[in-house]
């Protein structure tokens, strides 16, 4: 009887095709990506059927957490530095170049102006801790939030206001924020929401 010859096939697979796919996907992700900017607090936005997308640039972010603490941030590093300069001039503070650089990297922050210097000198991991999410004072006695908004508008007249508030935030807290903005004659806002399906038949 003749022996059955088992042909031994090589177990190696040609990786070239797989490599092509991997890099194709990689290119796609690099080109389409816009990085998620870390925000000072996690906010759970309410949902709406609105499908308007927020523009990518010229945005002033206002975050309001469930306790009514206000956080603030603008885009573009050079605008942030300009804003810090304005704030420093107004409050007779000085910031070192290093502090300015740190500030230009922070997406949104929530500390009173008095504590800003100390905040900027903290190591990044301490900065993100809950104890440092103090919120910007927004009451009638000491409305620092107002000056942040006013100066941001001065630096970038085209800036748009995006308000991102938690769904559990009580209405009076939102009202204080809106009232402050109305005082500054800022009457158009974008309320950031998550998408919800349009009810059927409408």
């Amino acid at each position, binding site marked *: 009887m003749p022996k059955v010859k088992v042909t031994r096939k090589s177990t*190696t*697979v*040609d*990786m*070239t095709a*797989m*490599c092509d796919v*991997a*890099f194709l*996907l*990689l290119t796609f*992700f*690099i080109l*389409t*990506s*816009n*990085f*998620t900017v870390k925000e000072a607090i996690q906010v759970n*936005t*309410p*949902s*709406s*059927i*609105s*499908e*308007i*997308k*927020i523009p*990518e640039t010229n945005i002033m972010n206002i975050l*309001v957490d469930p306790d009514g603490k206000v956080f603030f941030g603008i885009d573009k590093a050079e605008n942030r530095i300009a804003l810090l300069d304005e704030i420093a001039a107004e409050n007779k503070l000085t910031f070192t170049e290093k502090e300015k650089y740190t500030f230009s990297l922070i997406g949104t922050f929530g500390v009173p102006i008095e504590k800003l210097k100390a905040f900027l000198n903290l190591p990044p991991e301490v900065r993100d801790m809950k104890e440092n999410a103090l919120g910007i004072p927004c009451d009638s006695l000491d409305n620092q939030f107002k000056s942040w908004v006013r100066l941001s508008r001065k630096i970038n007249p085209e800036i748009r206001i*995006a308000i*991102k508030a*938690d*769904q*559990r*935030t*009580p*209405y*009076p*807290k*939102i*009202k204080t924020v*809106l009232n402050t*903005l*109305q*005082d500054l*004659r800022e*009457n*158009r*806002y*974008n*309320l*950031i*929401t*998550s*998408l*919800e399906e*349009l*009810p059927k038949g*409408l």
Partner: protein
Amino acid sequence: MAELNVQDKGGKKKKGTKKMSTRVDLTPMVDLGFLLITFFMLTTSMIKPQTMEISMPSKDNVPEAEQTKIKASKAITILLGKDDIVYYYFGMKEEDGTDPQLIKTDFSPKGIRDILLQRNAEIVNKIAELKKEKIDTKMQDTTYKRKASEIRALKTSPIVLIKATDDASYKNLVDILDEMQICNIGKYAIVDINEYDLSLIKKLNG
């Protein structure tokens, strides 16, 4: 891994140039590729957040003559209360002092939405017709939007006043603004609540 070049040591050494395989093992490269893909997938946000655009009235004092007066017959006042409860009434306080009837409802589709759709039936129907027309005639998006906003601005449309009590949450506010969009109401305003409205709620709740 992919290719193993076995050299036979015992054999005679070939003279001249050794023929090297031109194949390169691509496995580490694939590893690297997928590692980077994972990184980019995790750090990027593909979905841009949605926004709802609202305009608030300016706080400047508008002279009495230029203020827009609301016809009582067109007005619907919505009060946002505690625990997602909505109150509404039509019209205003009558001249003879009788209060408008305050009704309690909620955010369910059978609640405030039905009322608004009913009140706004004329415009809702027109928008529905326009939508049909858009599909039939393959109307441009911009024309559709223009026509839709024209319909919404019709004089017969109701005017909704949204007043939130201090017990309402931000979610309530967004929800009611959402209802305005769903029900195609073009004229609405967020107004501060006054004592009179609060007293109506109090009376209703006993």
